[in-house]
């Protein structure tokens, strides 16, 4: 099993923020929930409590950007765009303010139900001109998200994992560069965020059944290098399966669909994720199973794509080892 890292954001943000004078820490009454409570206590001069008033916070952050600061906004992802969408557009995205939107508890990683689950955030953010979207899939990516986000010349929305996070990778996020986790030639699996851990689990079981898997992990969702992924799509005999902690409309499944259609790729695409549905409150494992966001769903998606039953059981998936990925350069050696 991979190493589990406790509260990786907490340390990473403090280290980054203290090395960069223009970085400010903003919170909307979810300070400990976003792992910045120690930062608040240790560095009050760089911390701004904006309260439960997200509309003001987004425009206020635009004003801070105008003053030359680079505010990091901390709250649950859902609160960064649903209520303050107008402010996000007019005060942050249009003028390309260097506002860093740190969205915690993406998708079904919260038990908070519909009001707390950012299930369409990527879709919304992808359609906003000037917006960059990053998503973390492991502890190393969480540890490097601050530097990656702050390198963006404009606004950036980040899906950030919190709490106990597995370490899958040992190299930081390189903005715009997908991770090539396996380079098989039967089927291409594309994942991001927590879906990648599921895919690693499914991959072991699939490969045990003789399926040669090509697996890409996306941490930069927008902008996106279509050319790079086209090579991978062309490299597999079968089609593409996407799995995302998000609705299947507008996220990475749609991203792949657009790229394939734009380039006339005549291969099948199976998009897995929340199927035009809201979720409800529950544990992450329960929700991932209930809504078909887990390794089992991914195996079923591959079976659908290949038109064959592979006979993989739940036990096969449960016992599949998920090891840390020690290199993105020689991914095929994993």
């Amino acid at each position, binding site marked *: 099993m991979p190493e589990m890292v406790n509260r990786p954001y907490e340390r990473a943000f403090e280290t980054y923020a203290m090395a960069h004078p223009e970085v400010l820490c903003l919170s909307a009454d979810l300070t400990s929930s976003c792992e910045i409570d120690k930062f608040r206590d240790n560095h009050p001069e760089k911390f701004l409590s904006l*309260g439960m008033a997200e509309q003001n916070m987004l425009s206020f952050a635009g*004003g801070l950007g105008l003053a030359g600061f680079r505010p990091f906004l901390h709250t649950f992802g859902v609160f960064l765009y649903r209520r303050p969408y107008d402010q996000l557009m007019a*005060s942050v995205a249009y003028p390309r303010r260097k506002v860093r939107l740190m969205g915690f508890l993406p998708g079904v990683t919260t038990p908070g139900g519909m009001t707390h689950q950012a299930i369409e955030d990527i879709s919304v953010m992808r359609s906003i001109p000037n917006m960059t979207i990053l998503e973390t899939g492991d502890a190393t990516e969480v540890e490097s998200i601050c530097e990656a986000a702050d390198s963006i010349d404009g606004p950036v929305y980040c899906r950030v994992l919190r709490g106990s996070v597995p370490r899958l990778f040992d190299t930081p996020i390189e903005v715009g560069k997908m991770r090539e986790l396996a380079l098989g030639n039967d089927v291409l699996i594309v994942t991001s965020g927590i879906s990648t851990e599921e895919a690693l689990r499914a991959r072991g079981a699939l490969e045990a059944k003789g399926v040669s898997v090509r697996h890409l992990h996306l941490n930069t969702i927008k902008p996106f290098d279509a050319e790079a992924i086209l090579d991978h799509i062309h490299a597999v005999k079968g089609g593409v399966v996407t799995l995302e902690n998000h609705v299947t409309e507008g996220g990475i499944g749609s991203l792949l669909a657009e790229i394939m259609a734009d380039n006339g790729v005549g291969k099948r695409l199976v998009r897995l994720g929340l199927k035009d549905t809201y979720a409800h409150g529950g544990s992450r494992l329960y929700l991932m199973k209930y809504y078909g966001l887990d390794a089992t769903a991914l195996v079923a998606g591959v079976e659908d794509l290949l038109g064959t039953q592979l006979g993989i059981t739940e036990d096969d998936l449960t016992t599949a080892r998920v090891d840390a990925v020690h290199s993105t350069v020689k991914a095929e050696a994993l």
Partner: protein
Amino acid sequence: MMSTGRNMKPTEEVALGIRRRVFEHAMRNNGGYLSQACSAAEQLAWLYNEQLTIGEPTLPMVPEPFGGVPSADNPTYHTGAGYNGPVRSDLDRLFIAPAHYALVAYATLIEVGRMAPEGLDMFNKDGSSVEMIGAEHSPGMEVHNGTLGIGLSTAAGLAWGRKKKQETGKTWVFMSDGEVQEGQTWEAIQCCAHHGIDNVYAIMDVNRQQCDGAMNSVMDVGDIKTKMENFGAHVVSIDGHKLDEMRDAVQEKHKGKPLIILANTSPFRGMPTLQRRFPRLHYVRFKSEQERAEMNQDIARALGVAPIDYGGVH
């Protein structure tokens, strides 16, 4: 006694000039934001002619055409803030929070010598930066405020940042009373109070009108002054057509609090015949050639100018 302002012209004359320019424009274009000129002329004249500490314009007197929206592919993009002079730590900034007052704001820029009169001819023309609802790239604008209620929050963020950097310039917001129907306005005031942001200054045109008509018929907002005070602002309520009251109001001590001047105004001031159109004053489009001709005569007389030759029947 007349006081002379930064433009070496009495502020009263600037205000009259604003009304005359907006009137002329509305006549030629068969309508416009006339009542906003009536209510706000003194406030904008006072800000630009007396109160704001701003530098010489940095952009051409005749506005450039629309230069594209901000994007990574548009490196020459700039806002219209250069009409308010350069960005400098000791200079003031001004946001026009209700961007629907753009016509009045442009007329003010002309009256104080910051934009050429030709600028107004470009108003709402395709390909022009002199947009109907002031955009970031429109003369005198620095941020988008067409969506009402976001201006004060942006100013608060800018002001907090400027204070942190020990900049001495003030951040001013021209506001409209309709904005108090938006919850964000209250979020912004409580935020200023909580963080002690007292380098924010607002003057609000309280004309009691909004798009659908009189505010008390659309959504009554009650006692704005008391509500704002309860949210933590220092509020001064004045007659928004009396310059001396503005001059006094801005002197009030407001340590730790934003200063908000409520300028109570008449939407007919200087153009009494507009009362005929009450309560639909937001954008006055003449209903008939006859009404246009009558208003032309009446308002011209009230403003002390000749009727506008707009090519119609006289």
